[in-house]
């Protein structure tokens, strides 16, 4: 009787014992979760890098624009000074002034009839 009872208990524990393969679904699930975490981390880092790059690009573009605006302003000033000098040099000499314009444009100078 004792052996039968002992055998029954032993059989119960044998049938319900925790086998290593029973952990496989959880292990695979955990591995998948780790993969998802890795992907999230990579994407977050990527977004940060892209945002930083966008900021760098914006700053560089603005710097170039600013640089050339300053150059254009300088050129405008030089052109203005040149115009002033031309005017001062030839304001009483329309013929010489016409010749200056003719040099630049290639237009023919026609003298007026007296």
């Amino acid at each position, binding site marked *: 009787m004792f052996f039968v009872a002992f055998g029954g208990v032993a059989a119960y524990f044998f049938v319900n014992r925790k*086998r*290593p*393969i029973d952990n*496989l679904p959880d*292990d*695979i699930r955990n*591995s*998948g979760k*780790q*993969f998802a975490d*890795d*992907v999230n981390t*990579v*994407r977050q*880092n*990527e977004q940060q*890098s*892209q945002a930083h*790059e966008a900021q*760098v*690009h914006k700053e*560089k*573009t603005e710097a*170039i*624009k600013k640089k*050339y605006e300053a*150059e*254009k302003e300088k*050129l405008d000033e*030089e*052109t*203005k000074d*040149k*115009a*002033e000098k*031309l*005017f001062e040099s*030839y*304001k009483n000499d*329309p*013929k*010489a*002034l*016409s*010749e*200056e*314009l*003719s040099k*630049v*444009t*290639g*237009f*023919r*100078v*026609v*003298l*007026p*009839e*007296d």
Partner: protein
Amino acid sequence: MKNIISTIILLSFFHSNIAYTQESTDLPKVETQQGEIDPGEAISPMKSQQKAPFTGVLLSPKAVATITAKLLSIVERIKLAQSEATEQAQEFCRNEKATNEIRVKADKQILEARIRDNERTIELYQKSLNEVKQSQHDPVMLIGLSAGGTAVLTALSILAVAQSIK
């Protein structure tokens, strides 16, 4: 659809040009002399009260000086615009390259993570398979044990029957 959009853009372009032309042609009418010869592309230096050699536009010395100076600076302006466009294009390319590098690097890292995940999964399956293999009993041993057990039980039964007969 593309044709319709192109037509609308083309019409709006002409419309704006027409409007611009209408505004800019609002000049006083000048009566030209009969039989006046077209001087072509010409300019005429004049002093006040002088007779103009052809019908045209009289500019003040300051206007002529400004036009001349502006025309003289055109080459420099073009060079400046060209240089700016080049630098902007270079910066655009640098940005495109950097953006692509970041994206490709991230994709590579994700692929590496996927490989690691696959390797982990394979390892788990391998481990489970090994454990299952180890937990399996040797069939020869089971047959032997069964045969032995049967023999012992048979012997015990014979012994019991013999004892009961006695």
